[in-house]
């Protein structure tokens, strides 16, 4: 049962743990786009996404010493990112509800009408479901890897994806049929 495991992530993490900034910078460039993609789509706001990515990498730098072999480097990195993003999502959602301002924007960049519709549908997913969806369809992580990243079972991953698809299909196909 091979996992999407890039051994050089692990090496870079170990070097980062020893304070090697160049290795950290390599990791940063390797994951920058993927991290930003998840954060931006979950949080729906450029500034919040950049804050989350920055915080995730700060944590990677500070905690690299706690990285252990036997855990793929990518899994460890995605775990840190999704932990940061889920927490930011929680705080922003509750705050928006209470203040009646800054509603959590669900829109992804892009003008098409279908995209707006689908986005509205996806926004109804719980935070966990959205993260699972992003890891699967944006980052193409296998089910087992997503389960490891989020500390959930493969069945829970599948449940989240099934619900997302159901929601989408209902949303999309009702008007046309």
């Amino acid at each position, binding site marked *: 049962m091979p996992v999407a495991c890039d051994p050089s992530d692990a090496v870079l993490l170990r070097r980062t743990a020893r304070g090697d900034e160049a290795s950290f910078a390599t990791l940063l460039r390797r994951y920058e786009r993927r991290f930003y993609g998840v954060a931006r789509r979950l949080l729906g706001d450029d500034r919040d996404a950049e804050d989350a990515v*920055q915080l995730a990498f*700060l944590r990677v730098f500070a905690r690299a010493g706690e990285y252990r072999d036997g855990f793929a480097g990518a899994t460890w990195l995605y775990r840190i990112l999704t932990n940061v993003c889920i*927490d930011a999502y929680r705080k922003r959602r509750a705050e928006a509800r209470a203040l009646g301002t800054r509603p959590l924007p669900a829109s992804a960049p892009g003008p098409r009408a279908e995209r707006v519709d689908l986005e509205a549908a996806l926004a109804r997913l719980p935070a966990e479901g959205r993260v699972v969806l992003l890891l699967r*369809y944006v980052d193409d992580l296998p089910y087992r890897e997503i389960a490891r990243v989020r500390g*959930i079972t493969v069945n829970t991953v599948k449940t989240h994806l099934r619900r997302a698809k159901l929601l989408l299909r209902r949303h999309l196909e009702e008007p046309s049929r």
Partner: protein
Amino acid sequence: MTTDRDESRIRAVLGDVTPPPGLAERVLRAVRARRDAAAAAALRFDIVATPDGIARIRLGGEGRIEAAGARARRWADRARDELGEYLAGLRTFFTVPLDLSGVARFQRAVLASTQTIPFGELRAYRWVAERAGSPAAVRAVGSALGGNPVAPIIPCHRVIRSDGTLGGYGYGLPMKERLLRLERETPVLVACTTTRVLCRRGCERERRVPEERRVVFASLAEARLAGYRPCPICRPAA
């Protein structure tokens, strides 16, 4: 049932996102700044305790403790530990009791509603005024919070103007910003992937969870759905 068409639609709607230019450089600068700042002195505070609880805290103090009697001393010690953990990003809630007997009624009502604002979240002055039973007294709420004797245990730094600007703070705006940033960066609900227990950050059980077994959840409900249960010690809600 799923189809490839659904999946390609999902991929299309999720679209492509490009990181803003210079993101990696900004992160590197932040990491360097943080490393340099780590050597800077931690924030200290003075504590005044009575047998009933904590009566006064002064942020930026010299670490002095005033407590008459063993009971007061115990509260002061607990407050010192909890404040230290809070300021280090290791704690999201306080268990030490407060003694607000010297505080006037209106201010006590304002402080009581402020105390219900969850860690890491913001509320408007108007929200506090409504909860304190005086919806028109928004300005008075501002001064009542300015005189909060037990900041940051009663989190008046979480109260801002409804236009999103910070408003005031008894210890100055840089301190308010510092506390808000600290709370943005500290996760609230942390679970362990082996024990399947969900804790509030700062719980004694949470502190024993190693990094690679930590998962953060958005709510107790979502954690339950994923097969986690709430810790009986810190009892996370919502």
